[in-house]
């Protein structure tokens, strides 16, 4: 029987916050009930691979249930395209089983090192959001284990509030023990990818609008380190699945950053040089290319633990969403604010999200444009900059993505997610997280 063990090694992806937590890693589903029935009143939180950047997957001083050993497939229907699995199964592991059989998940985030439970609890969005909607749209059923109601099986389309609360519910509605997903057929593991350089945010929005009908996958990299008239330059990528029958899955990556880098490594000079170089390489590179899904969807997975490059202080990701009407002006303003601050975002990604409704009460994805930025943690100046970005996002009627957040003020969360009060009624009384204590108390 697996028990809780105190440790301080479980970090979120941004590595900013370091907390002590009692962690249990059960190997079988039947152990979960016992883990929920702890005599004292410290709270619990189930977590996956810790790919959330901030503190939504942390429960400092309390308890964590590491779900990653619960990674078994329960049933795979490779004719009908339906898979049922334990919630700790990693997306990459699943793709290695289903791609050779001609299936893919309805959408994927920018990393394959995320568990099904984590993808569901953040209701993640992918490059095909304008077509497929968020991850939760592919969820047919889920099993939830709660401290007050025991095991509950929920299905989509039944109008269950608890189902809607659990999708995008940040792990607060109980332990997701298993998930049933609908899959999408593919006829190749490869995509036809086109890259188009653009000089201004305006051009990005034109390209995005023009590609939404013709391309299943779109995303743009923005050079947030460019200045003056070059501000807002970037590379727009759009792609469609090929149908050449080559269904070879990805291989596991071999490269890794073994240790924390000195924190001065990713300073703004290096980041500017890197972004400038990337811009020149991409601009002059081949415009159209046959590309495997792994480098296309998961470019950062090529080097595991790349987050250690930010060194001991870690980094913040800032991901906002602004509604369509305000999008162009707001994105420009955000970039100008960053330029003025002198801080450099190492990696900036811009994408438009489609109108399809996300099924979760707290789902982040809705129609608009989303910008994701990575900033090394330099303490007060970094937080001050993010505060100024908050003002712009708020003005535009936008909101921030909890999966990426480790600092937004409570009122920012509440303004962005007015449904949070009805959501709160579904939170398991024994569950909590650093994020939740920060925004809801």
């Amino acid at each position, binding site marked *: 029987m*697996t*028990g809780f*063990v105190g*440790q301080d*090694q479980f970090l979120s992806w941004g590595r900013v916050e370091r907390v002590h937590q009692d962690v*249990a*890693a059960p*190997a*079988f*589903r*039947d152990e979960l009930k016992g883990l929920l029935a702890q005599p004292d009143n410290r709270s619990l939180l189930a977590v996956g691979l810790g790919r959330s950047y901030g503190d939504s997957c942390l429960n400092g001083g309390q308890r964590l249930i590491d779900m990653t*050993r619960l990674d*078994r*497939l*329960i*049933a*795979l229907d490779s004719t009908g395209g339906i*898979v049922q699995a334990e919630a700790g199964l990693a997306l990459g592991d699943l793709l290695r*089983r289903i791609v050779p059989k001609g299936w893919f998940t309805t959408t994927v985030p920018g990393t394959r090192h995320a568990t099904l439970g984590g993808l569901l609890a953040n209701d993640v969005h992918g490059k095909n959001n304008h077509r497929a909607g968020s991850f939760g749209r592919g969820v047919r059923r889920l099993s939830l284990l709660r401290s007050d109601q025991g095991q509950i099986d929920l299905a989509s389309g039944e109008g269950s509030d608890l189902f809607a609360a659990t999708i995008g519910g940040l792990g607060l509605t109980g332990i997701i023990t298993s998930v049933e997903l609908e899959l999408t057929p593919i006829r190749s593991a490869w995509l036809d990818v086109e890259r188009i350089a653009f000089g201004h945010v305006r051009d990005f929005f034109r390209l995005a609008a023009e590609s939404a009908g013709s391309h299943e996958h779109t995303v743009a990299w923005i050079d947030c380190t460019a200045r003056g008239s070059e501000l807002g330059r970037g590379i727009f990528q759009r792609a469609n699945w090929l149908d050449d029958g080559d269904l070879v899955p990805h291989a596991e990556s071999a490269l890794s950053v*073994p240790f924390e880098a000195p924190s001065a490594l990713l300073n703004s000079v290096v980041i500017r040089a890197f972004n400038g170089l990337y811009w020149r390489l991409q601009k002059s590179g081949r415009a159209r290319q046959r590309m495997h899904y792994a480098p296309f969807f998961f470019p950062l997975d090529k080097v595991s633990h790349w987050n250690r490059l930010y060194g001991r202080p870690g980094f913040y990701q800032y991901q906002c969403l602004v509604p369509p009407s305000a999008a162009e002006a707001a994105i420009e303003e955000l970039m100008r604010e960053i330029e003025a601050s002198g801080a450099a975002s190492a990696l900036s990604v811009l994408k438009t999200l489609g109108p399809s409704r996300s099924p979760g009460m707290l789902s982040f994805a809705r129609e608009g444009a989303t910008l994701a930025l990575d900033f090394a943690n330099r303490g007060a100046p970094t937080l001050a900059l993010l505060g100024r970005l908050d003002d712009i996002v708020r003005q535009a009627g936008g909101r921030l993505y909890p999966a990426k957040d480790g600092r937004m003020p409570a009122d920012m969360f509440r303004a962005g997610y007015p449904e949070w009060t009805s959501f709160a009624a579904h939170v398991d009384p024994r569950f909590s997280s650093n994020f939740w204590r920060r925004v809801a108390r």
Partner: protein
Amino acid sequence: MSRVIVLGALSAIGEATARLYAADSARLVLAGRNIERLEQVGSDLIARGAAAARSWQVDFAACADPAGELERMAAHLEGPVDAILLFFGALGDQALAERDPGEAARIIDVNFTAAVPWCLAAAALLERQKAGALVVVSSVAADRGRQSNYVYGAAKAGLGVLVEGIAHRLARSGAHAVTIKAGFVDTPMTAHLKRGGPLWAKPATVARDIRAAAERPGRPIVYTPWFWRFIMLVVRNVPAFVFHKTRL
């Protein structure tokens, strides 16, 4: 397509190894004590490509007739057995074992006494087949007695000598036997220890070496991950007056 018997299929390392065989459409017998868990592991292995995964409920320490039981498992595989893999074991509580002879006996029982008849039965079966591998998971703890886990280490050392003898016995038969000396692996067995750092391996990493050992005769002792061979070379050769100053 290989045919494999997994003794201790609910161990984290055992399950990880079974997954490697499943990906190549193996037929598997999964033996362990908890039938529901075995069924869960079996469904997963089928979804991962296994041609068959048969759950087999058995308490290895309480089985009256390991040889007969092993024969029945083999019969289920419908053909010659390619590998018999032995994973069951328990770390136990060293401090408790020093106070309570019952705990010491339990550690010796699970890791050694219970394993012996299963190894001997496997040796006989493979010898008759003139093919196949017996792979038994021991530990680097068996290489030198250390204050933190020497009862466990002693049991695993005994098991290692047994399997070494079986390897010798099988040497000209066409079958072979291997002792796996595993280092620190991140599994439920070690959940209570402080983990992390470069010495800790994932079950999947160790599993690859176990499978390779089953398929390649000629190396009766395999350290996994490989660097433990060198670490243990040093550990074995540190003079006692130095070693005794450590708290290893």
